[in-house]
């Protein structure tokens, strides 16, 4: 890390991955495929642990396993039990590997804790490539997610060609694998699920939803980055804690505004009744 005293490589890589995950999370929220993300993320982590154990390149192995799970899940109608079962299977395999092999134990700890501060230039370039691809694909992805909302109605844009489905699935896998490799599994899942969840409660439309998801994701990363550094704590759990807090802010604000409005209207009704009785 001496050649990078300002930690610019891990900072840039971590922020880019967080933004991609927050964007992907918005799509995941619209698609309603939260369980799939759990399973695919866990198998990406398993791929990373296996690759580190047998000294293979991490990203290709993680992409292969995560991709295989994604293909399997696309073929299965049960969108809750099967992903959960696969998530548990992946978790069990990681635990068994790390219990029996010292090298796997180290890798599993790295994927669980999130070693974003040790993100190297090689992974950064992969992240930059996928970020550029994501920027180019974003308009198409948004259109696919939006047109998927129409179902069971069928509009003029409701048709999904097979090529688009494969492209979207490949992009999901790529982002999730990179997110898991860079931030650790818990932080990657938190970046995927929580900013979009927080944004969904207050956004007034699709553009606002996407923008707010990205803004919340950025805020979480900044807070997680500096507080984990300052407190000398593992990145992933600190990131998850901030993600929970930040995602709760819009929901809590909305709750307070709604309560204030309903109290106001109740007070007006009581005042009106009191006025009617007096007159």
């Amino acid at each position: 890390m001496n050649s990078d005293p300002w930690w610019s490589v891990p900072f840039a890589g971590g922020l880019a991955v967080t933004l991609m995950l927050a964007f992907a999370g918005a799509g995941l929220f619209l698609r309603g495929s939260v369980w799939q993300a759990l399973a695919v993320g866990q198998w990406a982590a398993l791929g990373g642990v296996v690759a580190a154990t047998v000294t293979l390149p991490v990203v290709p192995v993680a992409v292969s396993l995560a991709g295989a799970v994604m293909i399997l899940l696309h073929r299965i109608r049960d969108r809750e039990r099967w992903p959960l079962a696969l998530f548990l299977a992946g978790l069990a395999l990681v635990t068994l590997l790390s219990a029996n092999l010292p090298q796997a134990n180290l890798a599993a700890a790295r994927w669980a804790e999130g070693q974003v501060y040790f993100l190297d230039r090689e992974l950064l370039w992969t992240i930059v490539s996928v970020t550029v691809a994501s920027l180019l694909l974003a308009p198409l992805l948004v259109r696919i997610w939006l047109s998927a909302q129409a179902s069971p109605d069928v509009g003029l844009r409701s048709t999904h060609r097979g090529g688009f489905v494969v492209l979207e699935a490949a992009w999901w896998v790529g982002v999730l694998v990179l997110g898991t490799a860079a931030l650790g599994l818990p932080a990657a899942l938190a970046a995927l699920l929580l900013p979009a969840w927080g944004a969904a409660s207050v956004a007034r439309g699709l553009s606002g939803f996407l923008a707010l998801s990205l803004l919340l994701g950025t805020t979480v990363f900044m807070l997680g980055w500096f507080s984990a550094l300052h407190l000398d704590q593992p990145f992933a759990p600190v990131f998850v804690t901030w993600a929970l807090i930040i995602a709760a802010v819009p929901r809590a604000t909305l709750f307070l505004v709604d309560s204030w409005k309903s109290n106001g209207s109740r007070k007006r009704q009581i005042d009106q009744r009191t006025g009617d009785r007096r007159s």
Partner: protein
Amino acid sequence: MSASPESAQPILSCTNIRVGFDRPVLGPLDLRLGRGEKMVLTGPNGAGKSLLLRCLIGKARVFSGQVQRSPRTKTCLLAQEHPRPALWPLNGHDWFRALGARVPGDSSVRTLLSRRLDRLSGGQWQLLRLAAVLHTSADILLLDEPANHLDAEVRDSALGLLQSLPPNTALLMTSHDAQFLAGTGFPEVPLADLL
């Protein structure tokens, strides 16, 4: 209001079709829809009206017989129900974009466009869905029980939208709401007559 089948150009014709999901459960039946023709399919619950509409949009399987459409025909469907997620960060403009529809001039619909879809009443949601489907440039519109959930407040707006359809747009609709059907003025065809 509706062109007669004899005078209209055929845009859709079904000949001797048997349809279903896993196995054929309806048919054989024949149907012919002229360009610009408007028709209401009637029949008891479970007769297969919704299944027929889903088959015409490619969401159910044709086991035998022939379905023929004019070249480059665009078809849209308003499904019988569209349950909304509890948290749905989309507004009316997004909905029209999702269906590839142009924004209508009707004021009762325009007032709904900036509102979140999950905060509309059931009647407002149904009106918005109906307006979006009707404002696509589809050649054939399939409407499955469009009067569902329409309360008195939005009923007239829905009828107004249906009556202002372009003359070239063909429409096949199902409904159990006799008052609504009378308001449209479209001819009724019992499903049993197609079998």
